[in-house]
């Protein structure tokens, strides 16, 4: 190579051209136009009140934010248009779209929409956000369970089953022992048990993981409904009335305006959720556990050739995933409502599945996806309360439509762990 280094080279550097993507400005423009139709064809009178404190007891009191509805919407249209122009300018200049611009655009859109939609009403910001968090919490647990499972190479379609089993046993054990803590442990154990079955069939017997997952969902629905009907419901005083976890306000943190009461006046299950999100994220990317887990999910034979037991790693982590999803189940009966009901998870496991794919198999992104879903759900709830002229069925559709657009418009292609779904068969 030395000779080559002295000789005249045909230019060593590769050339770069800027890629111009008009996607962002196009989407911005589309939504700006669509949004402008609202105040144009459905002008709303009056003012919108954004309430920023939960109740009179808040230490730091913020006044209500009162905005004239229609003018605010128009101002937001203008700001959105400006953001669109900025995005277009950047696209022309072949520069990437910065996160702040996208964030700003989304904030304008949201603010404008809320102002328009809540004309004459009061929008309780804290209720809006804390409701979103409540709706997202079991989804986050479920999605994290899914992330771990798929990252280690076992598709976890059984999140629904783990949530439901968790909710069931949390209610049962919580009632029997009189302490929600044991209920929580029971929820984790039963989630773990469900995923143990998943592991036995998927890892040891190489049964297609989707079959096992789908079937486990049916099995657990069958079993919980059966025992609910024959056991829990007839003896609901003793077997189906657990005590709930109390809310614990974190001193100081819970006094932060707006986000304090939303994030830091919660039950221990929610605090655990924060911890689990962090631990899973940290563990996955920074620790030996995570490195090996991901290796097994990406290329099990490579992991095998460096002496990592693929089978053991898969078993351990699938069970861990089940335990985490099981915790999400406990949210239903130990935080939300002190009673189990048949099929009470109502498909949340599938939404969690969607969230983890939406979140590209990453714990933080999956959490954000679940939060987005929770937010969209609660936004429709709040809007239909303050009076929306849209039929309830369309309002209830909103979170799903938002997710659909978000996935199709923004996320696009995503790559699952390479060996996810593949049994590891060794001689």
């Amino acid at each position, binding site marked *: 190579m030395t000779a080559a280094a002295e000789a005249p080279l045909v230019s060593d550097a590769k050339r770069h051209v800027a890629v111009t993507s008009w996607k962002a400005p196009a989407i911005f423009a589309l939504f700006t136009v669509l949004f402008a139709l609202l105040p144009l064809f459905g002008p709303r009178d009056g003012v919108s009140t954004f309430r920023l404190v939960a109740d009179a007891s808040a230490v730091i009191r913020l006044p209500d934010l009162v905005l004239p509805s229609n003018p605010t919407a128009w101002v937001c249209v203008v700001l959105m248009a400006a953001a669109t122009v900025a995005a277009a300018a950047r696209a022309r200049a072949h520069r990437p779209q910065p996160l702040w611009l996208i964030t700003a655009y989304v904030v304008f859109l949201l603010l404008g929409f809320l102002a328009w939609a809540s004309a004459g009403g009061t929008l309780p910001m804290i209720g809006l956000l804390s409701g979103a968090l409540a709706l997202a919490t079991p989804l986050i647990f479920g999605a994290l369970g899914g992330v771990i499972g798929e990252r280690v190479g076992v598709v976890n379609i059984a999140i629904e089953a783990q949530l439901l089993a968790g909710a069931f046993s949390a209610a049962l054990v919580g009632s029997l022992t009189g302490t929600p803590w044991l209920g929580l442990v029971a929820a984790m154990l039963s989630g773990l048990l469900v995923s143990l079955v998943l592991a036995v069939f998927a890892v040891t017997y190489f049964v297609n993981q989707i079959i096992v997952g789908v079937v486990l969902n049916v099995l657990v629905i069958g079993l919980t409904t059966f025992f609910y009907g024959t056991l829990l419901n007839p003896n609901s005083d003793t077997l189906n009335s657990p005590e709930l976890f109390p809310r614990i306000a974190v001193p100081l943190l819970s006094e932060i305006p707006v986000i304090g009461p939303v994030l830091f006046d919660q039950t221990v299950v929610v605090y655990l959720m924060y911890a689990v999100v962090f631990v899973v994220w940290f563990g996955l990317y920074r620790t*030996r556990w995570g490195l090996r887990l991901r290796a097994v999910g990406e290329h099990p034979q490579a992991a095998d050739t460096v002496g990592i037991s693929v089978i053991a790693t898969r078993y351990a982590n699938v069970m861990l995933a089940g335990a985490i999803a099981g915790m999400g189940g406990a949210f239903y009966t130990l935080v939300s409502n002190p009673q189990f009901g048949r099929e009470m998870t109502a498909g949340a496991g599938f939404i969690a599945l969607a969230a983890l794919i939406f979140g590209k198999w990453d714990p933080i992104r999956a959490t954000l996806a679940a939060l987005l879903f929770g937010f969209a759900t609660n936004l429709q709830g709040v809007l239909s309360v303050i009076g929306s002229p849209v039929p309830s069925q369309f309002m209830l559709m909103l979170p799903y439509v938002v997710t659909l657009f978000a996935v199709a418009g923004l996320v696009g292609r995503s790559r699952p762990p390479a060996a996810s779904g593949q049994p590891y068969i060794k001689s």
Partner: protein
Amino acid sequence: MKLELRGITKRFGALTANDDIDLTIEPGEIHSLLGENGAGKSTLMNVLYGLYQADEGDILIDDVEQHFAGPGDAMAAGIGMVHQHFMLIPVFTVAENVMLGHEQTRLGGRLDLAAAREKVREISDRFGFHVDPDALVEDLPVGVQQRVEIIKALSRDAQVLVFDEPTAVLTPQETDELMSTMRQLRDGGTSIVFITHKLREVREVSDRITVIRLGRVVGEAEPTASNAELASLMVGRSVELTVRKDEPQLGGEELVVSHLTVTDAAGTVVVDDVSFSVHGGEVLVIAGVQGNGQTELTEAIVGLQDRATGSVLLGGSELIGRSVRDVLDHGVGFVPEDRSVDGLIKEFSIAENLMLDRSHGEPFVRHGSVQIGTLDDFAVEKIDEFDIRTQGPWQPAGRLSGGNQQKVVLARELSRDLSLFVAAQPTRGVDVGSIEFIHSRIVDTRDSGTPVIVVSTELDEAAALADRIMVMYRGKVVGIVPGDTTREQLGLMMAGMSGDAAGATGANA
């Protein structure tokens, strides 16, 4: 340390992949294993490495019997392996791959990446590898991935290193570097098992050679043996190592590529304003180190690159902007570089693979319906014509050995009326017997008046096939030179030196 395999037998169902094999690796020797595709070399090494359990036979280290339940045990015993199919996690960095399985951690269970990086750098410097510990493996050229595998093995202080076909994907320079690394290791006392299909390399680097055929040891050879001797020992018959090739009967300029530019998704220009033409009845070999735009160039011709600008005129009609199917319908035959991913559907039968690019019309499809009879006849014919070793046309293609898989792809692409034939790395990983066959088919195609483009990183192959050689570097054409250009000059051109300069330097050298 001395490693001994005694009476190793390994069966896969009815197939005996290794049949009572004895092999002794002395300390500090480079021991080559030679054999056709499917002879059982990889299987033997996988047994040695604990990936497979032998049905019969023993493994001894320094005369002590070993029981490897898994690769962990083998590694602990000082055996390292660079696998034929890389055992690297594509989405991990080099350091992560190297540390995997014997990670060091710091407070709070955090991975000690700094230590791993240091280790990579240390080994990398010792052997002059130039590997960036923080690069993602999937972004690295195969040659560098190869080095990562070696670093992986060395980081565990392997005393016996198995290289299973490490040079199949390397450029000549990289191969030379690898061989000097191997010598360096041997001189340091490490024993090396070296598997390759390239006889030149075997002769150059081996201390001893063992030849395997059909799962048995058929003999030992000295490094001084001739290519022809080795080849016939391997294949069991005499092999012609150079294709017989007449002077080209040049036709018109069938293919004219001008100002072809391809960018990747991130905006990097991977093919940079490339212009050339190919005559009917001519083989143009595109040479160059892997990853210098050859792949993208061929893909752009076939319509597989979305971001291609410029012009590709085939027989006067423009190919750029057409769909792949359209291009194929124009009579372009294409052998992709990575047959197992892009060329074959392993779960499909040989017959189905043979109709893969003609699934929309005659002769295999009539009124929307696949003509099974026609297809079966065709497949039987092609299996015979291309000497594909199989039990029948309806066997899954994935079960064939590498060389035979390659023949299936070739059979498919050469059985249409072609106006252009493009083959990328047509003989990669293929044994000498099959290489002979594939080369002669390519020459036949040329002789029928079709323009042919062959992408190869193999200088021997370039020399054997080319009427002209075009060398690419960093996406640009370094020069187009006659087919009989010297190895040295081509080597220099592949490092980016322009044709004239390289010619001068090469002459001086």
